Structure formats: structure tokens, C-alpha cells
């Protein structure tokens, strides 16, 4: 199997499906990946992520990429590791129960610093699938010391845009990046505008210029990531889950592995300003703030508008990524409002992070729902009205 790097695809521009579409969320995510130069996908079927594999199996052959259906999730994520180390831009897609099975391979990718992108179309079981119950699993699912990057699209357009962002972050920080989707937006059709290829900004990992004899596969500045050398080009590297030194040799010396884990965590922790993004709606004069993420942003904005119509000044802080925690933005909001509403499609999870970061500056009220459907704006408005009497 030959792996082609995105920047080697002659016809890459032609692969970008420029124009206005009325597209399914899962398909938009695939188009984002294709626009980002994804050229390898391995996955195992699961509802409600199946349309991602389906479209990938059609699109990747068109762009010179490879599609593999693994025999299970674990196989798929390890296939990503291999293809990524050979220089491909790689992705898989799964849903909650399938994500469980990927933890070992995902943990491996964190430790060996393999850029991979995972779409988790989170789900519950029953008639309706929508949930954000697994927000902590996305951060803490694997064993070992690592930092997760999780981006949270709220629309079909953002499923496209944020998937490109995810690939760029994965390449820039040589770290797995998770696109957190859920059944509502994944199975929804909506307006999607795909720009022309020259307007899409891509970041590709930095390749080494060192000769194989001088190459240090895990040599990097403090809080930085190493230059990359693809497998199969004479750079003999052991990519081990075990603690390893700069040369890639398995090394049990505590000094060595402390240095490794400090850097693997530090490259994310110390670059939060570059990674984290938030958006504010109606926050300028807000007395109360909804802090939320993903598709829950949509009814939250409507609820804030409803609240304002009845004289309650509510704004919305949307977290475009939940890991690493956008602490600065949350802290600033906590200092400017009298109460925060943490709106979530689960029994109250990420509210713990918001409460921690708010640090007692203002109370945080958890607004929860776990019925397989996203909040309606009326439900959120009622919760706000109750708490602002």
C-alpha cells in the first residue's frame, strides 16, 4: 500500500467540493477531512457514524487515498497510527460504545505523538441518540499522562470547518484530536458553504532535515514537538508506548520519562492560547451567562434571546473546544456576570470544569437533559427564568 501525502496530491484542489450545499452533517465532516488533505481512513461501522465511513469509502479513492474497514475499532485506530507514521493524514469515525474500544490505540498515539483525528458521533441508546454524556471520556479515557484536544462543532458548517481545524491541530502538535459530534447535527441536513481550495489554510507537520544517523525522533524543544520522519525512508525508529528517550529507545530512567511526559503534556498545556477558541453572543451587557458547547449552543442562543425579550440580560459563551479547557474565557465571564448556566446534554458533567474555573467568582447552575434529544430553547429559558426570579 502506498501512502500519499496531501501536499503531494496533484489534483488536491479538484478534490475540494467548492460551492453551496444542503448537506448531511456526517457528510460535511468527511468533506472537511478531504479538504484538509485526509488520505487514509480506517473504521468499523456504528450508528450514528456510518455515513462518515460510507462517504469516505467513495471519496478517498477519488483523491488517491485509502479506505480500510477494520475488523474492529482497535484494529482501525492502530491502522491510523501506522499510516500516520508513514506520513498520511488519517481519520477514523466511531460513536460512544465504539470509542470505548479505541482507548488502547488512542493512548499509544498520544505517547508516540502520532497525529490522528477521531470523529466521535456521541450517542445514547433508544429511539433518539443525541447525548454529550461522554465529555470526560474524551479527555480521560486512556491510561497514562497526556493532554486531549477536543473540538465541538455546533452545525453542519462547523462539522466541515472544525474538521479542518482538527487536522491542523493534530499536525501542528503531533497529537490526536477528537471531533466531538452527536446524533442531532450528524444526521441533520443544513446549508454548507465550501470555499475554494486556495482559501483553505492547512498546516502540515514539520519534516526533519537531519540525516537518518543524526535524527532524534523524540528530540524537541521544551513544550514543543519533534520533527517528523516517515517510516520506510531509512529513519529507523521504535515507536513504543513504553517510556522512551529522545532516540526512541525504551528507557526506564525516571529522569527520561519525566522529561518525555512533561513535554507531551506541556506542548498542549503551554499552548492553550493558540489552541482554545470561544465565541460570545450578547455578552457585552450580560448579567447572566450561558456557558455551553456543541449543538447545545443553538437552543441556548435562542433561549438568551427569549430571556432578553422578558427583560433578563443573558449572553452566551460558546466553547468551540472543551479540551483543553478554555480557562481564560470562562474566568473572564465568571468575573463579569452574577450567575452562569452550564447547559449540557447530559446529567451535568462539564459543569465541574466551569465551576472549577469560575473559582467562586459567581455561582454556576447546571442545566441538564439526557433524553436522547437536544434542549429546546423553551426548556433552557424556563430554567433561566426559574433561577433569576
Amino acid at each position, binding site marked *: 500500500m502506498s501512502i500519499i501525502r496531501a501536499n503531494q496530491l496533484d489534483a488536491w484542489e479538484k478534490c475540494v467540493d467548492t460551492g*453551496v450545499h*444542503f448537506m448531511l452533517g456526517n457528510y460535511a465532516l468527511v468533506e472537511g477531512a478531504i479538504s484538509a488533505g485526509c488520505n487514509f481512513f480506517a473504521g468499523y461501522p456504528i450508528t450514528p457514524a456510518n455515513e462518515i465511513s460510507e462517504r469516505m469509502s467513495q471519496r478517498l479513492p477519488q483523491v488517491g487515498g485509502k479506505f480500510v474497514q477494520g475488523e474492529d475499532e482497535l484494529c482501525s485506530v492502530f491502522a491510523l497510527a501506522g499510516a500516520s507514521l508513514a506520513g498520511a493524514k488519517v481519520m477514523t469515525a466511531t460513536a460512544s460504545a465504539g470509542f470505548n474500544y479505541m482507548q488502547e490505540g488512542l493512548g499509544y498515539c498520544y505517547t508516540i505523538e502520532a497525529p490522528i483525528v477521531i470523529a466521535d458521533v456521541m450517542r445514547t441508546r433508544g429511539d433518539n441518540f443525541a447525548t454529550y454524556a461522554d465529555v470526560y471520556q474524551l479527555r480521560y479515557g486512556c491510561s497514562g499522562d497526556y493532554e486531549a484536544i477536543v473540538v465541538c462543532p455546533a452545525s453542519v458548517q462547523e462539522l466541515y470547518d472544525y474538521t479542518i481545524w482538527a487536522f491542523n491541530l493534530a499536525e501542528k502538535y503531533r497529537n490526536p484530536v477528537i471531533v466531538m459530534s452527536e446524533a442531532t*447535527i450528524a444526521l*441533520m*441536513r443544513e*446549508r454548507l458553504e465550501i470555499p475554494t481550495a486556495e482559501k483553505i489554510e492547512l498546516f502540515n507537520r514539520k519534516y526533519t532535515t537531519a540525516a537518518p544517523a543524526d535524527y532524534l525522533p523524540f528530540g524537541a524543544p521544551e513544550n514543543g514537538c519533534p520533527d517528523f520522519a516517515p517510516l520506510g525512508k531509512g529513519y529507523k525508529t521504535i515507536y513504543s508506548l513504553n517510556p522512551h528517550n529522545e532516540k526512541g529507545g525504551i528507557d526506564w530512567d525516571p529522569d527520561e520519562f519525566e522529561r518525555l511526559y512533561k513535554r507531551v503534556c506541556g506542548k498542549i498545556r503551554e499552548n492553550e492560547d493558540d489552541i482554545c477558541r470561544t465565541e460570545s453572543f450578547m455578552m457585552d451587557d450580560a448579567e447572566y451567562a450561558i456557558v455551553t458547547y456543541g449543538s447545545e449552543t443553538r437552543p441556548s442562543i435562542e433561549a438568551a434571546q427569549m430571556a432578553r425579550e422578558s427583560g433578563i440580560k443573558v449572553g452566551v459563551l460558546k466553547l468551540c473546544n472543551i479540551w483543553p479547557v478554555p480557562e481564560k474565557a470562562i474566568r473572564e465571564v465568571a468575573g463579569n456576570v452574577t450567575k452562569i448556566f452550564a447547559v449540557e446534554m447530559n446529567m451535568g458533567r462539564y459543569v465541574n470544569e466551569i465551576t472549577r474555573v469560575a473559582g467562586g467568582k459567581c455561582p454556576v447552575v447546571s442545566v441538564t437533559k439526557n433524553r436522547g434529544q*437536544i434542549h429546546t430553547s423553551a426548556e433552557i429559558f424556563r430554567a433561566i427564568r426559574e433561577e433569576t426570579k
Partner: protein
Amino acid sequence: MLQYPQKISLCGFGGQGIILTAVMLGTAAVTKGGLYAVQTQSYGSEARGGQCQAELIIDKSPINSPVAEKKNLLVAMFQTAYEKYITTLSPDGVLVIDPQLVTDLSVPVEHTFAIPATQIAVDLGNRMAANMVVLGFLSECLGILQENDLIDVVKTQVNPRFVELNIKAVQAGIAYAKEHDLYYHG
């Protein structure tokens, strides 16, 4: 002038092409009409025969909440689906039914349009085209799309073997709205 947002629900049984109708109306609204649209659906696990519902919100500006508690327009293509979803129609909304398939209107709606879509499709030679009759009818009734734009969308989304039949069905739906002066301005 049509008011926005339009919150539309189409319901029937699996296999009637309910979801495809909503997808094509949304596609035409977005790609030809310069509008915003959000389409969601719910259906049973059966391939055919289960209840099926598609929601479509059309607006002039980006749409926040993708689900609407009350609809302006409800299209019911089967009796049991009518019974299940009639409560989601707002009191001043419009009900569209196929009178052959929805025969017992237990909840009277002041503005009810009856279009014999299935009979029209049978007359055209294939009852499976009833959904395209509904598509043409809705497009004309709402007045947001040009006929040729709608036909362009049919050509891109339908199996080439059935394009001719589907175009005829769409045109028959448009003609029915015109002949009976069934226009919706809500």
C-alpha cells in the same frame, strides 16, 4: 409574502419517500433559493412500513434551534401519522393531506388543503411518485421556488431511470396547486 421561519413537518409511513421530499425541498431552498434550511428526521427501525417524519425549517437567516415544538405546515400522508403528529401543528397552521390516505380528520384544522397525490401518481403510472407530486405542490403552494430550479434538483437527486416520471409528478403537483388556487401565505 411568506413569513419566516417556516416550520414544516412531513409525515407518513416508511417507503413513501417522505424524507426525500423534505431533503429535495431543502436542497432547492438552499442551493437555488438562497435561503437557509435545517432538515431533521425520525423513523422506525423498519425499512418500510414504520412511521416516518421529516422536519424542515426554512428561514432567510441562519437557523439556531434545529427542532421546532410547533409547526406552521403539516403534511400528512397516512392516517396513523396524522394522528401522531397533528398535535405538533400550531392552531393557525395549515394541514396538507392526501385524502385517500388520511380519511378521518379527528382534529379539524381551519386551513386544510387536500391533494390526491397518490391518485395523481397512479394516473401517471407509478404510485411511488406521490412524494414528488407533494414536492411540486408544496413548492408552488409556498411560492419560494421556480419550477425549473426544482426540476434541476430532481435531476441531480433522483435515479436517472425515474427522472422523467418524477419531473412529470412534480409538474402535476404544481398544476394541482394552480388549478385549485391552493396558496399558503402564512
